[in-house]
């Protein structure tokens, strides 16, 4: 077994992952704040006024990262759902569950900020454009995912049902992305591409990318924090959780830097 596989299997266990996530949350939270401050400074102070859209374009510093995050988080959810269905690993289903509320939040922010950008530039808060409509469907998929999970009492059954929904719903993500190419839409095409030069000023692009990185770090921090909560909810009756509770009341717990509860580690 390779070192990667060993590490993967080790952290697929909620008992090992819980303390690791606890150590990563503050790192990503601090990074998110620093990147957001840098991104907002670049977006509002350094970046010039757009010659065509005026100051209204400054909404893109949150609209574009929110739209990217909403799409990407759904794909990550689908990935963890596929792993959960294939290998029946508890933590994979918990990861997918932890991402859904934040994905829904980004999808909502994407639609909200898009509406407030659309009003001054298109003259309407909402049009039944392919890009907007498919993003609205994405929000409904997130809400449906959370509603389905809440409706099923047995967590393992809920894992399987929601995993199927996440996988089927993933087809919507390429539809959102390519909608501006496949249909004649009011929404503009991609401004940033991996294969072409950016169609915007360097400082604008820098501000947008900094805000995107901030959104990434925020999402990772929140998802890790939420997955720890889900682990508490679902593993409360386990022995390792009881040991962890004892460990966390120990003032030396944080200083030890163990990747798993001491009591559980000593039993191994």
């Amino acid at each position, binding site marked *: 077994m390779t070192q990667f596989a060993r590490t993967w299997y080790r952290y697929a266990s909620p008992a090992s992952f819980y303390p690791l996530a606890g150590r990563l949350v503050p790192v990503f939270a601090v990074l998110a704040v620093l990147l957001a401050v840098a991104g907002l400074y670049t977006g509002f102070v350094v970046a010039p006024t757009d010659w065509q859209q005026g100051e209204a374009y400054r909404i893109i510093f949150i609209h574009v990262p929110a739209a990217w995050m909403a799409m990407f988080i759904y794909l990550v959810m689908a990935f963890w759902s596929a792993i959960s269905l294939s290998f029946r690993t508890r933590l994979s289903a918990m990861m997918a569950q932890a991402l859904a509320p934040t994905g829904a939040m980004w999808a909502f922010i994407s639609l909200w900020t898009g509406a407030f950008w659309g009003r001054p530039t298109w003259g309407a808060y909402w049009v039944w454009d392919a890009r907007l409509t498919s993003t609205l469907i994405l929000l409904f998929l997130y809400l449906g995912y959370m509603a389905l999970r809440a409706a099923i009492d047995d967590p393992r059954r809920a894992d399987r049902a929601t995993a199927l929904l996440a996988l089927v719903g993933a087809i919507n993500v390429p539809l959102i992305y390519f909608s501006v190419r496949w249909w004649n839409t009011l929404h503009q095409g991609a401004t940033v591409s991996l294969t072409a030069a950016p169609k915007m000023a360097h400082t604008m692009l820098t501000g947008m990318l900094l805000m995107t990185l901030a959104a990434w770090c925020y999402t990772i921090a929140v998802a890790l924090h939420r997955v720890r909560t889900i682990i*508490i909810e679902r593993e409360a009756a386990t022995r390792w*959780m*009881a040991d962890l509770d004892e460990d966390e009341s120990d003032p030396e717990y944080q200083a030890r830097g163990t990747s798993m509860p001491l009591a559980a580690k000593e039993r191994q």
Partner: protein
Amino acid sequence: MTAMLDWVRMDGYGFYIWSSYGMLALALVIELVALRGRRAAAQRRARELRADPVPRA
């Protein structure tokens, strides 16, 4: 002061810009408060469960 107000007005687009950023701030606050509440509730339930365990079927 005037320069500050001009900046807030954003050349007439202030309502659209600040409504967008304001909603983001509100959404982040709601998410973080909800997350904190859920974690506190989960920890409380876990302690209750350990104090008074119910045999599993």
